């Protein structure tokens, strides 16, 4: 426990220094708080408006989690499909790649136009930005399976689907969790962006209206909440990896 604290210490110090420098600049340079509010002010305002912030965080969290769950299911099903069928892979991959070339700025308002101000367009946009990294992580993970393990299973008489379950799927787990860590950070940003393009409630629309009311302190309060949200989800994905892959824990402990 103590060793862990010591390892985390440099990060805590550097973050604290960053905030101190910001606070000092905001106070000493004479810059107007309507241009750059000090972090102490942001925190104070966030606390004062905590009810409004909480009300707007919940829909964003919902959109993020639902959209991400949808994207995970879709990525898994399609990754299995293209793993078993080479023609399917060649047919679908160009579409997946093209889907990643669409500029979100243009797509988000269109999706809102088509599906309204409710939860659906947010879910779709979160799924769109997180789907591809997950799919790539999974397919790459399957491909990383040791050739000799597959050959061994073949010599034991295991059919293709059994080789997939016994070797390819577990081999993909480290890649899956690496992809999870990356796309979970896109997910929150994706949801906020979707709300920015039009929503009844949510952090995105909260930030937008705070900006329109010339309240940079509340914009930053919203940003802070979204960062904390992302960090929490990131932490959860680390925890999931830790629980699901006990063997990688054993390996690391040995190497230390």
């Amino acid at each position, binding site marked *: 426990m103590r060793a862990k604290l010591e390892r985390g210490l440099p990060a805590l110090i550097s973050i604290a220094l960053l905030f101190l420098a910001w606070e000092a600049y905001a106070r000493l340079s004479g810059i107007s708080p309507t241009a750059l509010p000090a972090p102490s002010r942001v925190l104070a305002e966030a606390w004062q408006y905590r009810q409004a912030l909480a009300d707007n965080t919940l829909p964003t969290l919902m959109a993020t989690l639902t959209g991400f769950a949808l994207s995970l299911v879709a990525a898994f099903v399609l990754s299995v499909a293209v793993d078993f069928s080479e023609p399917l892979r060649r047919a679908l991959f160009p579409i997946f790649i093209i889907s990643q070339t669409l500029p979100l700025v243009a797509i988000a308002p269109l999706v809102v136009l088509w599906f309204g101000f409710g939860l659906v367009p947010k879910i779709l946009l979160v799924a769109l930005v997180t789907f591809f990294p997950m799919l790539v992580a999974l397919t790459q993970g399957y491909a990383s399976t040791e050739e*000799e393990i597959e*050959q061994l299973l073949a010599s*034991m*008489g295991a059919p293709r689907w059994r080789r997939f379950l*016994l070797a390819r799927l577990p081999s993909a787990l480290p890649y899956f969790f690496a992809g999870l860590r990356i796309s979970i950070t896109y997910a929150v940003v994706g949801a906020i962006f979707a709300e920015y393009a039009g929503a009844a409630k949510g952090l995105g629309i909260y930030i937008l209206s705070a900006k329109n009311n010339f309240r940079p302190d509340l914009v930053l309060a919203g940003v802070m909440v979204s960062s904390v949200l992302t960090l929490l989800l990131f932490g959860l994905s680390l925890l999931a990896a830790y629980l699901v892959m006990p*063997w990688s824990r*054993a*390996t690391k402990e*040995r190497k230390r």
Partner: protein
Amino acid sequence: MIPPRLEIRNIASSYDGMKVLNDISLSVQPGEFVSILGPSGAGKSTLFRLLTGTKSPDAGEIRVDGKMLGDASPAFAFMPQRDALMPWRRIIDNTTLGLEVQGMSRKQARSRVQPLFAEFGLAGFEQHYPAGLSGGMRQRAALLRTVVQERPMLLLDEPFGALDALTRAGMQRWLEGMWMRHDWTAMLVTHDVREAVSLSDRIYLLSPRPAEIIRVVDIPLARPRVLGGTAGAEAAAIEHSILETLLNLTEDMKP
């Protein structure tokens, strides 16, 4: 007359349009330890792929106990070059892999392998992950996984190639000891001449690609041979003559 455990007749195989195996014939009797020895890239791995059924020969036939290969259930328990232990399975669950693929329940498979852990020098390591074991222990676990399948024959593909010299010598001695106590039939592919001489009843020497059998060496020496045996000088002489044959083949090795 009892048919040989394994009989390979005039097989040929090519890869990417290039001939790899050219007219190979050999046979292994039940209880025999036979080695295939040849330069790297001579097509030894291709031979194993033909036997495990992941590839079909262009010509010739392979019979196991008189029956054509592929007609019966898998005839070979295969031990690949590196141990191919699954890092996400505990050692005991790695060793039961073949039994599970055969359809045995995990519980039943575990109770079948458990008593063998002591003989394989793995007692107490059942619940460890492979990453926590030394190279030699991993190879013993891989061999345990191979023999519990109780197939008619063991196929060992350079099983000790990735080990350091000292561990390798220890493993060879250990394997010979196990060999003397069990009724196994095995075919070993290797390019280590000493390993082949100390373990085999017979050695088939392969030429470089396209591989043909250029010499068959019977080794009638008494066991045990690895360290402490009485066959030292004779074994060394056989080793020497095999090395000479192989070196004469590979022109670029000449000074």
